[in-house]
């Protein structure tokens, strides 16, 4: 913190000018930056004159690594980008590969993917709720949210074996079908959830301190946000009704009855209201999906893209060879390119995959919602107090793993 402060101050001295503003380094090691975000704040007293985000501390070259892997082996990387919406990332990536291959997934698979995506959305919003609450001084909110998120992670563990990074999807299907009795248990838990969300709201929605810190803070118009590429709950909180699940439906969203949550304020509190509404809608979606869950196979039968079942590998020569080929060389994906957007918990997420016809992609590009949403932070922060910056970072809901990739 001192380096930049002193560096800037001494620079001004040598120039022989009285410096009016002070530069303050917020992060990268600061709990309110939700990871390793570094902000250079130019301050006039306590007012932010300018804010310059520095990112890249978590850059791990996922896109480069994915180019060097077969299509299946790249799936675990998708978990680790936005580790709070790993399932949505899994789904988004395999959807794009399936689009390239022309694979039509089974109805059961579409239902299961929708179910886990929505559970993940609830879990991601719970983390956002908890951390935002804690940033603003309400540590009870954090404990409530993490207690309930644990149940969702337990569900994921049961389904996929992994909690935070499940890697549950496969090209043409899922790693495993739902476990016996999962649907009932999930439903029992989901029915309880709206009551828990009421508890969340009881803590913050009418809380005087929370309102003071969030209302009319960081107000942005929808036009400005669209020009900056902002999507998701932040955009919907400015009164812009756009949700990819509704406008460009994928999986089974066109068959579901749900509301796109919007608010008109465009401030931090409106973003809070939108996300709380989305959690409630996600519960409704999950219940509808569980009610309509069709039977049948979860994986496609075309073994060109899918590993043969384990029991056949043990007895059949063809199957063994096929298994070996898919595990080592991968399956060839027809040359072409595809971009399939989905609505992640943060906004528009899409994988742009370019295939050259071999078993490895020519290019995999992620459209990271957090990166583009974060870009709006300087505009939101200008003219606000330094304490508002903390509220703003929370309201954008960034995951640095995804910003930096």
């Amino acid at each position, binding site marked *: 913190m001192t380096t930049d402060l002193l560096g800037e101050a001494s620079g001004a001295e040598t120039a022989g000018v009285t410096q009016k503003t002070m530069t303050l380094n917020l992060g990268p090691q600061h709990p309110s930056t939700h990871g390793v975000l570094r902000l250079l704040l130019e301050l006039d007293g306590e007012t932010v004159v300018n804010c310059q985000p520095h990112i*890249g501390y978590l850059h791990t070259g996922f896109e480069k690594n994915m180019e060097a892997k077969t299509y299946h082996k790249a799936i675990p990387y998708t978990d680790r980008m936005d580790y709070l919406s790993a399932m949505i990332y899994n789904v988004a990536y395999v959807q794009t590969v399936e689009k390239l291959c022309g694979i039509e997934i089974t109805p059961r698979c579409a239902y299961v993917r929708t179910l886990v995506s929505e559970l993940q959305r609830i879990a991601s919003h719970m983390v956002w709720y908890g951390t935002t609450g804690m940033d603003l001084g309400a540590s009870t909110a954090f404990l409530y949210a993490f207690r309930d998120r644990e149940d969702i992670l337990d569900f994921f563990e049961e389904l996929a074996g992994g909690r935070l990074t499940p890697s549950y999807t496969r090209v043409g299907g899922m790693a495993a079908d739902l476990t016996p009795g999962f649907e009932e248990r999930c439903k029992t838990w989901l029915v309880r959830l709206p009551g828990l969300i009421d508890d969340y709201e009881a803590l913050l929605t009418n809380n005087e301190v929370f309102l003071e810190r969030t209302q009319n803070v960081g107000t942005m118009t929808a036009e400005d946000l669209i020009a900056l590429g902002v999507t998701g709950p932040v955009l919907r909180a400015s009164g812009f009704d756009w949700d990819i699940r509704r406008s460009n439906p994928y999986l089974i969203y066109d068959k579901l009855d749900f509301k796109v949550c919007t608010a008109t304020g465009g401030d931090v509190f409106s973003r809070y209201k939108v996300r709380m509404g989305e959690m409630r809608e996600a519960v409704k979606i999950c219940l509808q999906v569980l009610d309509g869950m069709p039977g049948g196979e979860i994986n496609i039968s075309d073994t060109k893209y899918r590993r043969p079942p384990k029991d056949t590998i043990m007895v059949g020569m063809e199957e063994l060879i096929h298994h070996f080929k898919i595990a080592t060389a991968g399956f060839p994906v027809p040359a072409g390119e595809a971009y399939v957007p989905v609505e992640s918990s943060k906004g528009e997420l899409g994988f*742009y995959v370019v295939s050259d016809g071999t078993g490895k992609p020519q290019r995999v590009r992620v459209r990271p919602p957090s990166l583009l949403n974060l870009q709006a932070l300087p505009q939101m922060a200008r003219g606000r107090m330094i304490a508002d910056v903390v509220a703003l970072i929370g309201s954008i809901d960034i995951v640095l793993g995804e910003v930096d990739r």
Partner: protein
Amino acid sequence: MEQTTQALDAAAERADVLGQDEPRAFTDRLASIVASLEREFPGAVMEHGVGLDMPAMRLRLEDWVACCRWLRDEPGLRYALLSDLTAVDYLERSPRFDLVAHLYSHESQTYLRVKTGVEGAAPEAPTLCEVWPGANWLEREVWDMFGIRFVGHPDLRRILTPDGWEYFALRRDFPLQGPGMIKLYDSVKDVF
């Protein structure tokens, strides 16, 4: 039994949507956009076609910014959201790089992919920052990863890798790892 019937119906419905209607709508839409663009900027559209997911066109590099601005503003199109901007490196091809932008129109709820080729030796392209302020970080990332210089960009610095980094990691000729593993911390010593 009932569930199976439901599942079959669902599959038939999906096949209808994905298999027939979408590409036809894509073709009509693209034809009208290309025709208007040709009127406004003769010779700008070098190539166009309907991809698996959305209509796509390749624009001449000189007309890149003007065409994008037109696509953003034209009533009836209004591709107001620059959803994504990235590059693809086709090492042995000429032009070597493709700049790829995905545009979204909230009015028609459709996507459009526009591309332009950038030559490999000293790659340069005009910036889209004046059309979409959101292009700022996206172009910085393309510069950082591919070394394509955006002329007129207000703040063209590296964004993900350290400032002293000399390489462009997403180029196809940049190795995943190699004998001379780069000494990362040397390049950032002056920051601290």
